[in-house]
């Protein structure tokens, strides 16, 4: 029961998380799709997984909205690779999102509540 509840909660929670992880990986530096995938699975400790197709689809939307852009560079083999990066407005959007939604967890009281196991 507990596990099922946790799975269900996590499933809902993870929806919408992909954008944040994509943006964080691009803030880290220009990357092509495989590198973005690697970054996400490494730093999310495999809690966030993404299909290559959905990653491409998301990136196309962000490029269209001009919050992400790319430069084509030659890969080791085969066709050119698209190296994605955050544009200025993408970076600004990420910072706004972090300050409004993520930094809340930096509050002392909330931090304490997150780390405490007992109910006060």
């Amino acid at each position, binding site marked *: 029961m507990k596990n099922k509840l946790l799975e269900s909660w996590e499933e809902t929670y993870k*929806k*919408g998380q992909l*954008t944040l992880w994509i943006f964080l990986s691009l803030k880290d530096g220009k990357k092509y799709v495989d590198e973005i995938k690697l970054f996400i699975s490494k730093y999310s400790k495999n809690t966030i997984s993404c299909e290559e197709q959905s990653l491409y*689809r998301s990136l*196309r*939307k962000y490029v*269209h*909205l001009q919050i992400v852009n790319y430069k084509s560079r030659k890969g080791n083999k085969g066709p050119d690779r698209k190296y994605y990066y955050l544009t200025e407005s993408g970076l600004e959007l990420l910072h706004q999102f972090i300050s409004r939604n993520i930094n809340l967890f930096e509050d002392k009281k909330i931090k304490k509540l997150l780390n405490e196991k007992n109910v006060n």
Partner: protein
Amino acid sequence: MKKMLTKDFYKYILTISIITIVFRISLSSLLIIETWNFIFIPPLGYFLLMFLSGWYFGKKDYEYLPFNDIGFRYNLSTFLVFFTISYSMFFLGQMSKYEPRIIIDYTFLIWGIVLTLHLIFYNKVKSNNIKGLPKEDIFD
């Protein structure tokens, strides 16, 4: 609207232009030689091919980027292609005597009304979009 012109959309326009030219020429040719038994073939073929083109390229286009335009781009482009070709053929004297201008004019009028209604609905839907993409689908 300019931002919503994708590769697949251009391919759709090219495809329907070819289909419309073939339709117009084949229909006029059959009418000129008065082959009444086969006259149903060009409009039927035209309807089927246009439907399949819209379905195929519309699906591909949506998979590429999920634009929320309730098909208005496709309706408008089909309208423009159809009447550009039809009026061009008429003024170039390539149509039969059974295709008077009034038929094209009436079709233009009726389709024009439908297109205007489509535009009104599209403008309502558009307010929920950011650069053509529905707000709720951007960060899904």
